[in-house]
């Protein structure tokens, strides 16, 4: 069965003084129907840009320079602009990180949801408004009828994010892309939004591409996890497998540095060094400058994809060699 979304060798580049910098450099993954795939990485890893690239929303002067994004077999990169617009907000919805600025400040929130509906379905304003109201109730907005006529600044961050979710789900998309949906919210509100997303996902059996840097969220929501570093994937695995047995040194470092997992009083282990900026990426494995287990090939060539176990993909020379040794 082909996956709902197949991303193959996606490359997105930005022009710079040193030529084109590929902030997304050959990313490939699948998203199956009804599954939640978490795309994890630090800021600057290219995870948000990957999502934006899939929907062809890369901000100028960047652009997608290679690869395919197949939705149900159809390559989105080949579609005309009009066809793409039908996909955006229709079959694929997206919610963003900053609810404060992501809603039009001078338009009432109800009208913004109505707009989302009417861009894709030929319904009357009254009907769309009714749907918006029931969506508001569904996402847990109290007093939905009155809230329809509110302006964004009258709502708290959590409520605004619920509006964004309602807006994105109003057209019953098959995929929801959530770009750091809770990062800008208070901790208590974060938990509410997460559980809302989980409930909605189960009810509608929607696929979610969840972009985050927070492994706690990954633990709550994700079925599978893809870890990105400096524009490339380094490890993809099922959630439980990744959290218990990370193979890539970067993933291991990330997991070790979660406060909850270390004993109180212990120094928090951290990955030494900083993420290199795109103009300073090493020729080989991009993590090689900070990797505790690097050896000769690491700085020279980027590791090939290895599958040490079914459903697990890793890009690491060391894993490759140990696999090779195991195989022998």
């Amino acid at each position: 069965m082909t996956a709902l979304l197949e991303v193959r060798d996606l490359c997105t580049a930005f022009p710079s003084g040193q030529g084109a910098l590929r902030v997304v450099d050959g990313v490939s993954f699948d998203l199956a129907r009804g599954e939640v795939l978490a795309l994890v990485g630090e800021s600057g890893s290219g995870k948000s840009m990957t999502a934006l690239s899939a929907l062809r929303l890369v901000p100028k002067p960047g652009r997608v320079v290679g690869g395919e994004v197949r939705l149900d077999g159809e390559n989105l990169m080949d579609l005309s602009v009009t066809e793409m617009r039908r996909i955006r907000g229709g079959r694929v919805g997206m919610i963003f990180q900053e609810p404060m600025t992501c809603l039009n400040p001078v338009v009432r929130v109800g009208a913004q949801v109505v707009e989302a509906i009417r861009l894709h379905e030929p319904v009357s304003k009254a009907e769309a408004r009714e749907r918006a109201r029931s969506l508001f109730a569904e996402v847990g907005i109290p007093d939905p009828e009155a809230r329809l006529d509110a302006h964004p600044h009258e709502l708290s961050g959590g409520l605004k994010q619920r509006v964004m979710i309602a807006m994105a789900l109003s057209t019953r998309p098959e995929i929801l892309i959530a770009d750091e949906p809770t990062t800008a919210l208070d901790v208590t509100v974060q938990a509410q939004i997460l559980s809302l997303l989980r409930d909605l996902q189960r009810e509608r059996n929607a696929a979610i591409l969840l972009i985050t840097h927070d492994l706690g969220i990954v633990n709550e929501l994700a079925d599978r996890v893809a870890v990105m570093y400096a524009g490339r994937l380094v490890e993809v695995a099922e959630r439980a497998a990744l959290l218990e047995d990370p193979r890539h040194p970067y993933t291991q470092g990330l997991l070790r540095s979660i406060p909850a997992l270390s004993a109180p009083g212990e120094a928090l282990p951290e990955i030494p060094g900083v993420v290199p900026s795109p103009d300073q990426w090493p020729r080989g494995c991009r993590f090689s400058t900070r990797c505790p287990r690097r050896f000769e090939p690491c700085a020279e060539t980027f590791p090939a994809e290895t599958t040490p176990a079914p459903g697990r993909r890793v890009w690491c020379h060391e894993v490759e060699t140990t696999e090779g040794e195991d195989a022998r």
Partner: protein
Amino acid sequence: MGAYVLRRLAYGAGVVLGVLFLLFLLFFTVTAPEDIARKALGDKAPPEAVEIWLTNHGYDRPLWPWQDWDENLLFDHYRRMLTFDFGLSDADDSPIIDRIKAGMGPSLSLTVPLLVLGMLAAIPLSLLVAFFRETYIDRMGVFLCVLAMSVSTLLYIIGAQFLIGKVLRWYPISGFDANLLLLPRFLALPLLVGVISGIGGDVRFYRTVFLEESGRDFVRTARAKGAGEVRIMTHHVLRNALIPILTRVVLAIPFLFMGSLLLEAFFGIPGLGSMMFDAIQANDFSTMRTMVYVGSLLFIFGQVATDISYGLVDPRVRVE
């Protein structure tokens, strides 16, 4: 909202008082009244004539309150300006207020159409340029704007008068007729010149506003919803851009009354601008003083009106 309006009005009133003080300093202390009298009567005027002139124009009292609490020019200045008792022109002894009333009509007949036409011309152009941002259309547009802005208004006026008035003879070079049927002929050229000389700066301003709004996050959200570029421009960007645009328009309203000094003088339109031009030529201090005051009053009024209109237009402000 009510408290906000009151606060703004109170501060505005304070500024008016400050303006009057600056004007007093400027017109009464930097130049002594005797000098003004001599400029009006001629340097060779005998002292008695100067005395009489000073008495007639109310300049014969001491300047400061501590010199004479009941009869001093400072309090007198404040009292008269605040009650709109503007007195006589230093140049020809005509009541200033009459001339103001007479001049407002012609000034407005030029400035109001100018504002409207200017916006009608500039906004669609800047929407177009902003729509095609980063393409060669945008670059050309910006270049043309800078080019247009670099030409002095004087040259536009002289050029237009020469080309259209003399060479092509489409419209009269100057003149004015209050008759509503004949008026358009006389206003055509100044309006044309006014719009063309202003369009460079206007388009650049609106373009900046549109581009700023286009870059906001909610535009990205709209795109992710599947909205087309045209809808984004007209429904999302334009509506948010209206706030700074409205500010600009409301701020411009006071100046509508003042008239354009250059356009009126060049094209012979008997409005307030012309009046000021005459005052400069004739060293008419009292008229100049009055006009600066009136202008400031209108400007302050415009700023307060802008702040209040902000509250009406931008839903975020109302929360205050």
